[in-house]
């Protein structure tokens, strides 16, 4: 069997003395489109940040394609939450997208013609090519999200992490992003998405991890996205959602 894209074992993370993630295991096979779902404060963002080495775990191990992240960085692309940066920063869309090549460029080398071409190509894929020279403060929320996606696309990765890419975008953009994610999966890439809208999970994704500080379930959507697991993850709060889901399954 092929090596998993991600293997997380016994991951525990605490802020001060409060556990955010507790003894979590997660395994994601290569070539899946996976959602991480769970209530607010369940540790979804913390999960992907710790895989990316941005947060130091108190215990546990993370492997990306069988090796530690530091060795596999070139295989990984990251789309942070749109609200994590100041969009009034004085720079252009093209410039932001080119930042996706900075990792491959390494120290001191300046981006040049090939980085520019790659960035324009990625912008074309997300339907933003005509915005290349636009100042980023002039973008709408959906456009900002597309720019971040394009920046991850130029990383030309095998494994993508996206933190709430559908947050505050309109229906058209959501469709466009989903199509793009499915294309990535068809090309053999693995995509991990922190997701909020439970109703679209079965439609968009084929794999799901349900978190609430502890791991509730992890597996194919058809097997683990059940009423019982949803109740475990969300408590009684999603009765109406699980009823809907019950009809579907």
């Amino acid at each position, binding site marked *: 069997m092929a090596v998993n894209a991600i293997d997380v074992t016994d991951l525990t993370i605490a802020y001060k003395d409060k556990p955010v993630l507790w003894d979590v295991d997660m395994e994601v096979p290569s070539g899946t489109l996976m959602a991480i779902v769970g209530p607010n404060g369940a540790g979804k963002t913390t999960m992907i940040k710790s895989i990316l*080495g*941005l947060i130091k775990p108190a215990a546990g191990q993370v492997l990306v394609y069988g090796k530690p992240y530091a060795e596999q*960085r070139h295989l990984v692309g990251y789309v942070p939450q749109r609200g994590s940066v100041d969009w009034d*920063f004085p*720079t252009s869309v093209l410039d932001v997208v080119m*930042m996706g090549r*900075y*990792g491959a460029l390494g120290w001191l080398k300046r981006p040049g013609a090939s980085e520019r071409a790659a960035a324009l190509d990625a912008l074309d894929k997300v339907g933003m090519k005509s915005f290349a020279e636009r100042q980023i*403060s002039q973008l709408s929320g959906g456009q900002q999200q597309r720019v971040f996606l394009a920046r991850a696309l130029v990383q030309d990765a095998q494994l993508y992490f996206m933190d709430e890419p559908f947050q505050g975008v309109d229906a058209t953009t959501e469709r466009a992003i989903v199509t793009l994610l499915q294309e990535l999966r068809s090309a053999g890439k693995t995509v991990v998405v922190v997701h909020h809208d439970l109703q679209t999970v079965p439609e968009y994704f084929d794999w799901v991890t349900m978190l609430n500080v502890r791991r509730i379930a992890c597996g194919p959507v058809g097997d683990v996205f059940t009423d019982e697991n949803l109740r475990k993850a969300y408590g009684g709060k999603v009765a109406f959602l699980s009823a809907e889901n019950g009809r579907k399954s």
Partner: protein
Amino acid sequence: MFSSSIVRGQWSTLMDISQLFYNLLFDYTLRTVALGSAILGIVSGALGSFAVLRKQSLLGDAISHAALPGIVLAFLLTRSREPVILMLGALIAGWLATLFMLNVIRTTRIKDDSALGLVLSVFFGFGLMLLTFTQRLPDATQAGLDKFLFGQAATLLQRDVVTMAIIGVLAIALLMTFWKEFKLITFDTEYAASLGYPVRFLDVLLTTLLVVAIVLGLQTVGVVLMSAMIVAPAAAARQWTDKLKNMVILGGLFGAMAGVSGTLISGSAEKIPTGPVIVLCMSAIVLFSMLFATNRGLVWNWFRNLQNRRQLRAQAVLGDLNTLAMQHPNEARGHSSAVLRAMSTNPEGVSLALSQLKEQGLAQELGKDAWALTQAGLDEAGKTEEKEA
């Protein structure tokens, strides 16, 4: 009699200014001092741009105030008034204050603004106490350390300016070398970390450069007002441009302009501390930029809004004229402005809009107060309708 004294007054001002320029070119002391101020302006303007974008404007204030005990302690330990030694003391103190502050934020529940306030007042208070103590020492009365409070550019010697130039060139060279990396961590720190850049190291390096920029200006501008030279040039530059590179260059330029003009003005009168005058010059540049900058300036925006409003008003009247023309498809008939006023939501603007449309060749006056669209106007209205559909 009266008028001739005014003329004489103007004449002497003119003489003063030309004298100033003459001195700037040929007076050794003035040239040295102006050069020093220019260097401090360039370095603080360029690095200040990054500090402002990283939301560290207040950090600059804390660092400059925290430098005071460093300066006094350096003097007490070495009994030397060499600027290089005093600057080294300032550098160490500024750096320690920064580290202390970052650790307070990281390890306690104290938030960054409180930590900044805390560090600023503790270090500055300690510095003032040391300064008072030092001035009571029998041999320290000549030290003139209190010049560091508000700055005194006249105390700059050529040696100091050479030191400043070397350090300034080094700082700018480092900024250019790590340009891509600094830009990345300033825009998106976590993304930079995910790409494998040592964010902590880059952060410390950039902050160190900021401390250096501040220390460079202390002798000229003083600890109390130095933070203005970090924030103000960047704030002014941001008004004019949407590119980081241009912002940094403009910031440096504005800083230098304020530095040199402030030094010259304070140098022309006795006993005016340089710092406040430089900061006043800088404020004038900020004010001008806020009002008149082509990108974000208030006056420019107001003008653009006015243009937009006019354009919209003309568009509405164009639409109305088109509607009227549709009712008589086969004849070119004129319509009075009274009809248009009745159709318009903004009747007072109709005659202005009509003359504007006429100027643009979209409308014509067939007879007295009989308006109709030209062929170009009809095409334009058709296009607008298509767009709306």
